[in-house]
């Protein structure tokens, strides 16, 4: 009995930290409409600073924590809000969501650069030792104090929101930001303050949690964000008290599972998957009223103009010349590593294409990319290795294996949309990572299963052409999709599902179709990528990459086939170009993180949108690229 009691109390200790953190996450989300996936990364980054002060500089613990939580973290929050998120506040939620992924990459890069990738132990703010409490259970003094700090912080927050002028301002902004602005509230100050509070609580979270765990830039950010997201989801990202309760609940569940659950490897991964089970169940059970909240609405980027297409012939010839050039490269460039990087880039481009047709053309969203890719790659590897079938069969059957999963998401997408769908598919990616790809019977004892290249394409040059063919086929299908009947229906669904239904079109059928097609495409790319390395490896299908893929796709240009191809080649070649410059490779995470966030703040249409505008201007100068469509028009207000 007392074991159970102290298990619950231990759970409450970590749970109270999740609870406070979830409150901070929801507060920022409700005030600024930004769901900060970088919350864990900010917590870890600030905790590294705390480590620097307290351990390296030997400053007193409380002083270090005070500086980090009360000065540095809020400053980061204010900065992020004013320099980044306020600039994209008119954009749909998905853009800011991806910008927060950029923050993860950026902060990880900075941490690598300053502190390398070693793990650290962080000193606890509180004294060690244990106390006896009612029922004969014991509890660490530090845990008791953590509970005190977390509850105290939450109480302060509640009092502030309830009774102060500032609190009224917060609630006004949450209710209706434009109107709050008209009421002479400084909404910018309040959104900055919401961010500052959020990052400050994030820092506190990191400092409270890290002593119990190891401080590291790779695992900890995702550990933190997964638990906090699940807690916040208990209140469907809307309710602060429910988010707090969710944190406590999750802490207790975690503690009980750790005490009484299986302690084997599979038990541990089950533990890590727990928050995602919770997210999935909560979202699938979400009541209709919540599903239809603004968070579930359309999130397609507002483009500044109607796509001013060059004529079909111009586009066709540009594409033909481009792919012909790609086909010539192996004939003139003999460097194997260049050819390999290009092939990698082309395969990546197929992944981005699968996102362009899904998100850019159809307005749907999936952060489950790696789940599809990994499922397909491991299926293919087992077909080729265990069954000894040909790699061609493995490629086809493996790609098909991802289709039912895609179709399932399509069915779910009829109920859930926007941010909630993004969270659900992300949960899928994490569950696939923990339960399937982490399972040695699936990914092998070393975390990889051999997957030979198909016969006839063993050499690197031959494989280059296989990748090129796959890319061309995907691009042609995507182009046909966009210009044809199916694409029109998908675009119609994106703009108004109600109107589409009223015309006799089954929205479910088309959602299932596009999710299946997109899943098939990225599945094939996942298999090809594995074939290039001749093995399917667990580490290639980490759920985190799903977020990165979508971010790169957005940066490249989510609305154009060319954007996907450009993004693929760019990131495929990046390593190659800077192979001789380790300093730059060291910084690439920082570059990319900065690039993603800045690019999104400046131009949500992505690089390709910018390039194409330039290209159109050139064509106009030469007079043969007359605009077929009318002049650019400002987006009509209130359409989103």
């Amino acid at each position, binding site marked *: 009995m007392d074991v159970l009691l102290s298990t619950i109390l231990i759970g409450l200790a970590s749970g109270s930290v999740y609870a406070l953190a979830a409150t901070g996450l929801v507060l920022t989300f409700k005030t600024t409409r930004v769901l900060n996936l970088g919350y864990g990364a900010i917590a870890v980054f600030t905790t590294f600073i705390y480590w620097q002060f307290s351990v390296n500089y030997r400053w007193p613990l409380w002083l270090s924590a005070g500086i980090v939580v009360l000065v540095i973290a809020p400053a980061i929050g204010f900065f992020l809000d004013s320099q980044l998120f306020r600039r994209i506040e008119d954009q749909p939620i998905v853009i800011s969501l991806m910008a927060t992924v950029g923050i993860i990459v950026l902060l990880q890069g900075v941490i690598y650069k300053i502190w390398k990738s070693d793990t650290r132990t962080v000193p606890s703010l509180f004294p060690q030792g244990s106390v006896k409490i009612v029922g004969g259970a014991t509890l660490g003094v530090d845990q008791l104090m953590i509970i005190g700090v977390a509850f105290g912080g939450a109480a302060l927050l509640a009092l502030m929101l309830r009774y102060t002028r500032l609190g009224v301002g917060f609630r006004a902004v949450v209710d209706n930001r434009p109107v709050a602005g008209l009421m002479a509230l400084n909404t910018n100050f309040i959104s900055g303050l919401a961010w500052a509070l959020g990052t400050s609580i994030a820092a506190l979270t990191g400092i409270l949690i890290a002593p119990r765990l190891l401080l590291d830039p790779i695992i900890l950010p995702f550990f933190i964000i997964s638990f906090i997201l699940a807690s916040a989801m208990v209140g469907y990202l809307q309710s602060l008290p429910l988010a707090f309760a969710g944190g406590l609940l999750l802490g207790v569940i975690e503690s009980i599972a750790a005490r009484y659950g299986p302690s084997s490897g599979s038990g541990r991964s089950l533990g890590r998957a727990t928050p995602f089970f919770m997210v999935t169940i909560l979202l699938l059970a979400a009541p209709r009223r919540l599903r239809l909240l603004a968070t579930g609405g359309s999130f397609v980027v507002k483009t500044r103009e*109607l796509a001013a297409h060059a004529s079909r012939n111009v586009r066709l010839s540009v594409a033909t010349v481009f792919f012909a050039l790609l086909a010539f490269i192996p004939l003139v460039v003999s460097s194997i590593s260049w050819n390999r990087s290009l092939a990698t880039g082309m395969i990546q481009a197929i992944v981005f294409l699968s996102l362009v047709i899904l998100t850019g053309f159809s307005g749907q969203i999936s952060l489950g990319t790696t789940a599809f890719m990994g499922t397909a790659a491991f299926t293919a590897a087992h077909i080729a290795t265990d069954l000894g079938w040909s790699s061609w069969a493995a490629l086809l059957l493996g790609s098909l294996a991802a289709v039912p999963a895609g179709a399932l998401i399509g069915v779910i997408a009829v109920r859930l949309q926007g941010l909630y769908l993004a969270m659900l598919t992300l949960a899928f990616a994490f569950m696939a990572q923990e339960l399937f790809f982490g399972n040695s019977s699936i990914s092998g004892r070393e975390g990889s299963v051999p997957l030979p290249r198909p016969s006839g394409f063993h050499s690197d040059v031959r494989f280059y052409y296989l990748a090129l063919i796959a890319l061309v086929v995907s691009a042609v299908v995507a182009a046909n999709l966009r210009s*044809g009947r199916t694409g029109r229906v998908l675009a119609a669904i994106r703009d*108004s599902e109600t*109107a589409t*239904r*009223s015309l006799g079109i089954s929205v479910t059928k088309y959602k299932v179709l596009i999710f299946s097609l997109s899943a098939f495409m990225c599945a094939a790319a996942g298999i090809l990528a594995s074939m290039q390395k001749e093995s399917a490896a667990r580490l290639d299908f980490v759920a985190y990459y799903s977020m990165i893929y979508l971010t790169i796709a957005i940066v490249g240009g989510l609305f154009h086939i060319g954007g996907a191809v450009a993004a693929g080649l760019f990131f495929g070649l990046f390593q190659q170009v800077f192979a001789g410059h380790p300093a730059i490779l060291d910084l690439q995470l920082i570059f990319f993180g900065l690039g993603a966030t800045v690019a999104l703040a400046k131009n949500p249409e992505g690089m390709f949108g910018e390039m194409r505008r330039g290209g159109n201007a050139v064509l106009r100068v030469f007079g043969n690229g007359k605009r077929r469509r*009318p002049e650019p028009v400002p987006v009509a207000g209130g359409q989103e």
Partner: protein
Amino acid sequence: MSELVAKGVTVRFGGLIAVDDATLRVPEREIVGLIGPNGAGKTTLFNAICGFIEPVRGAIELDGNDITKLAPSRRARLGIGRTFQKLELFHRMTVLDNLLVAAESAESKLDIASDLLHLPRRPREEKRCEDIARKVMDELDLAWAADRRSADLPVGTGRMLELARALCTNPKILLLDEPSSGLDTNETRAFGQTLQRINADHGIGILLVEHDMDLVMEVCRQIYVLDFGRMIAHGTPAEVAAEPSVRSAYLGEEDDDAPASPSARG
């Protein structure tokens, strides 16, 4: 024979009865009006007919077949076309594409594989559907806007576009939800004439949910009046206008002008 019947339809929102045992008939080739004060349940009944809201009691029948349980898209395929009070255009698409989606939904025999692989039948089917769309566009004077993005159209043109889009599906019955809201007097009059023309040319029945009394009185042969969810009157325009209960419910007791106030509707 294309006849739409709503029989004893009751819709409940929680404890609130929005539509209470309402019955109406839209006979073939006829324009029928449905009027009533704000919050009377007109749009609710309308949505129950289209399938966007499920009634707790009652039945919807098309040509004698019960369609109460069918999804909105199935009803649309059976020939119920509709427009929306708050414009639901495919706002990022051009006017022509808006119409193509509708025409292809009803007419195209193109399968998805032939579409994605651009097989020879694709341009054939696209041409056929584009012809249908252009014909409707000419009929409703929209040809000038074919390549405009629909979000940029003025409200009046947007309403025409919704009408055109519904027509492209070749419906048997057309349901129009407050088509005059956002239109000025001249536009409303022109819209009424267009309705009569469509009704005559295509021979389709029209159910007109409307706030603007002048429009309803002019184009409808029969009118149903809804108040607090109940059908309180039914008859020709003259009969309805003479009915005292209608005057008190809809026009207000003492109020003798102000038949139409389209602005207040939320």
